[in-house]
């Protein structure tokens, strides 16, 4: 019954106890036993568990008998917990009426807390502040309440105080959900309107869609239409996760559950899309749908060129489950055949790479990640550039635009100097600085995304001894004085090493890269000239001298085994060498070089 339904999410900074609280809610409502909870049901994939983040959202239906004597159905909609998935988070939140804002009593408000809270506020959710880990020695409940009030302007009078680990305060949380989060509105009599919160690929049933029914009902046999692309499908099965997948006769107005409708790939219905009755479409789709566009691109190549087709198969399979990443074949003179892949962000990129390596047993070379630039040519064309190698020559570039972000950084006051310095180096412009409490500061900065994608977060962590938290939202494109730097070996451009940088840094970066190449590329039988160039202008140069000889002077019976083994090893290493003109570049050198591109 709609009036006895509550839809909510838990939003929190990483490690503030979201999964533990979810487990406790499942246990307290009898959905799982405490033994099962150990596995932290909601995070299905290994990678998620290892990184402590949630990548794929799922929804669990909990049966709860409240103190008022009524039975309620509580839909807990899990949200991905990382900045790369902002859009997915916002769509999951759009399926809810309320959210638990979970904050660690000893850590306080962090960057992700703020970013997620803003998303919840933007979706008009009722937000229940929940302060966790109250029995830890460092807990400062009053201080944290004050921060929530000051920074997020939320009423903390009725903040819930819990220890999810100890199971304290859980029943109060459940009661608050029932009492303070409103039931879903929506009209059962209207035509079906359902919001797609998530979708994934199942080997047996094809795509499974997680949807929130806004109006009407959805049941097997119905013809439904995805409003973004007008494709129609026949519903085969609907149901909920309890957390086991459980079939239902239909999903009612206000329900959150799954729909199987014979879709072959997740791209058939994207997150944020509206499902409606094909015979009686709703007049207004759910607001807020947008095509997600990859923000970060890189080239992926197999170290063993013979495995190119395996990489293609693996990408195809991964894409079945994740329509937010894109790929298309590309070739590099230095690396052979591979794919240019686009990701929502850096974490998304790392996750895909790790899955390719782990689940498909591939060894990959990744070129330096790049953002998408917009280039206005002197001929008046606007080019979208996701690969520095594809940039036109400098003489035909009229102007360059690069994506900017607004970053929120929270850290103890003593690190502020370091953070300002880092942001300065990365062309950041400070927008604000606010004390959360006497010791912690929130900084907001506008920064070019290009300066973030490689190692900003790592550097931030190391400059703040791990204390800083960081989140960002994309602002849009701004003009930037950018140049492309090509690296040349004996006059041949190593396409995979080209990179875009701000003009002010160009000489330093070119020189740094050339020096690094000199260090990493072994001497060969001939001299090797390393050059960094902008267009035809050389901005840095290094030389690797030739090996004049490589021969064992005295080679007798005692040496033969040793030499053979040494040569076998060298030959094995050579297989993994990449050839640029005559110059052989070891794979390790490539990997190391692609890393320094961002320093």
């Amino acid at each position, binding site marked *: 019954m709609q009036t006895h339904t509550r839809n909510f999410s838990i939003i929190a900074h990483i490690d503030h106890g979201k999964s533990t609280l979810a487990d406790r809610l499942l246990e307290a409502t009898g959905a799982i036993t405490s033994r099962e909870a150990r596995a932290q049901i909601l995070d299905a994939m290994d990678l998620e568990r290892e990184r402590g983040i949630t990548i794929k959202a799922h929804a669990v239906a909990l049966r709860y008998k409240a103190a008022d004597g009524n039975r309620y159905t509580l839909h807990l909609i899990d949200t991905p917990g990382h900045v790369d998935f902002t859009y997915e988070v916002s769509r999951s939140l759009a399926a809810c009426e309320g959210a638990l804002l979970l904050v660690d009593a000893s850590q306080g408000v962090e960057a992700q807390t703020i970013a997620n809270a803003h998303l919840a506020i933007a979706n008009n959710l009722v937000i229940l502040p929940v302060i966790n880990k109250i029995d830890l020695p460092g807990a400062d409940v009053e201080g944290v309440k004050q921060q929530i009030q000051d920074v997020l302007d939320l009423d903390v009078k009725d903040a819930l105080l819990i220890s999810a680990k100890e199971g304290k305060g859980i029943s109060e949380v459940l009661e608050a959900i029932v009492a303070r989060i409103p039931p879903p509105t929506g009209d059962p009599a209207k035509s079906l309107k359902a919001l797609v919160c998530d979708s994934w690929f199942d080997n047996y049933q094809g795509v499974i869609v997680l949807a929130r029914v806004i109006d009407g009902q959805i049941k097997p046999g119905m013809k439904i239409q995805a409003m973004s692309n007008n494709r129609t499908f026949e519903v085969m099965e609907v149901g909920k996760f309890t957390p086991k997948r459980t079939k239902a006769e239909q999903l009612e107005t206000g329900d959150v559950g799954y729909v199987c409708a014979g879709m072959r790939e997740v791209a058939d219905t994207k997150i944020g899309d509206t499902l409606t009755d094909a015979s009686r479409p709703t007049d207004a789709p759910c607001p807020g749908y947008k095509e997600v566009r990859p923000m970060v691109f890189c080239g992926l190549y197999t170290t063993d060129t013979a495995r190119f087709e395996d990489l293609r198969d693996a990408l195809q399979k991964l894409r079945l489950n994740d329509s937010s990443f894109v790929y298309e074949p590309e070739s590099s003179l230095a690396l052979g055949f591979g794919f240019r892949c686009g990701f929502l962000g850096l974490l998304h990129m790392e996750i895909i790479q790790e899955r390719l390596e782990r689940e498909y047993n591939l060894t990959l070379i990744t070129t330096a990640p790049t953002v998408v630039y917009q280039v206005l040519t002197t001929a008046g064309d606007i080019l979208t550039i996701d690969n520095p190698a594809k940039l036109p020559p400098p003489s035909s570039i009229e102007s360059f635009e690069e994506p900017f972000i607004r970053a929120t950084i929270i850290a103890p006051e003593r690190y502020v100097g370091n953070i300002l310095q880092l942001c300065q180096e990365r062309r950041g412009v400070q927008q604000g600085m606010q004390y959360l409490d006497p010791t912690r500061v929130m900084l907001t900065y506008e920064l070019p995304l290009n300066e973030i994608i490689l190692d900003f977060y790592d550097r931030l962590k190391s400059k703040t001894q791990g204390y800083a938290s960081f989140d960002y939202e994309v602002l849009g494109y701004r003009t930037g004085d950018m140049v492309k730097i090509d690296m040349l070996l004996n006059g041949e451009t190593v396409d995979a090493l080209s990179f875009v940088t701000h003009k002010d840094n160009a000489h330093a970066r070119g020189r740094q890269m050339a020096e690094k190449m000199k260090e990493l590329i072994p001497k060969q039988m001939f001299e090797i000239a390393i050059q960094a160039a902008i267009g035809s202008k050389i901005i840095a140069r290094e030389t690797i001298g030739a*090996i004049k*000889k490589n*021969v064992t*002077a*005295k*080679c007798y019976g*005692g040496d033969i*085994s040793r*030499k053979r083994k040494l*040569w076998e090893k060298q030959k094995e290493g050579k297989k993994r060498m990449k050839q640029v003109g005559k110059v052989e570049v070891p794979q390790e050198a490539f990997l190391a070089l692609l890393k320094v591109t961002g320093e």
Partner: protein
Amino acid sequence: MSLGLYLHVPFCRTRCHFCAFTLQIHREDRAQRYLHALSGEMRLHAGQQSLAGRRLDTVYFGGGTPTALSAAQLEGILQNVRDSFGLTGSAEISVEAHPDTVTEDSLRQLADAGVTRISFGAQSMDDSELLQIGRRTSGNRTQAAVGMARAAGFANINLDLIYGVPGQTLDGWLATLEAVLSLDPAHLSCYALTVEEKTRLHIDVRRGDAVEPDTVLQNEMEDAASRRLAAAGFTRYEISNYARPGYACRHNLLYWQGQDYLGLGPSAQSYLDGRRFGNAVSVDDYCRTLEEGRLPVAESELLSEDQRQRERIVFGLRLIDGVDRTLLRHEPPDGAWNQTLERMARRGLLEEREGRIRLTDEGRRYADSVAAELI
């Protein structure tokens, strides 16, 4: 298939700065223990199936300094070799010697015992260069030793030389060559000085107390030696070896031609019936294992047919004559012999002539790079 025997004598009076071989400073008690162990090792091998019915074509005493042992001790070993394995009638029997460790009498005793070839570690004829590499001897001593060897009846005399010694100039090297040519040896080995790990030289170079050999200069020295020795009637038959006609070292040829050899003594390596095996490196481990009645084999590896063939090629290419083209007729499992050969021919490292594949002059400088492609 020929069969050779290598005997490693792990004793010297002092250790030279460039030397990475297994050795101890000579002491009579150590020598006694070693001789006892060596005798045990021969006894254990003599009973092996793989050697049954095969006589030795070559015997080579290397080291170390074999002549750190007395002539009588060496004679004893050689007698033991004859008794345990048997020699062919024309067997080549070589002994390496330090010029300071021989007398005319001791050399005569070796010749009488059947030694056919004597190889002196001359290294240089310039006393200051000798000092640089930690050899407290002189060019005069080498000259004297060669004279004594000739008087003792040796015609097959080799001198080992090293070029690229710290401080050595091209002229200094040419002077050493002239000096040794005047001694009329039958064979010369000219080795580019290499800084081996864990040698005194290596430490000195790392500390900046010695200069690493200049490879460009060494290449010039190599060319100069090759020209000068050819003019003097020597044939270069391997990267570092030159001989008058008929005096190529048959034992060393075994190594490069993939023939069988048994190695005795600490750290000695063997290649028998497609198996490579090697002895314990430390003299102490070697002796102890034999005292317990076991062979001191520390590692052993049976090569595949493909590996044997590849070894034949890469070590065969060290020979100036190269290898027979037919050795490469079987495409190996990973294929592409021809592509590799062509690529290296294009780079001017290899050439094919009269059915043989050889390294070019340029290719000889990069023999190890070529080997790493072909192995």
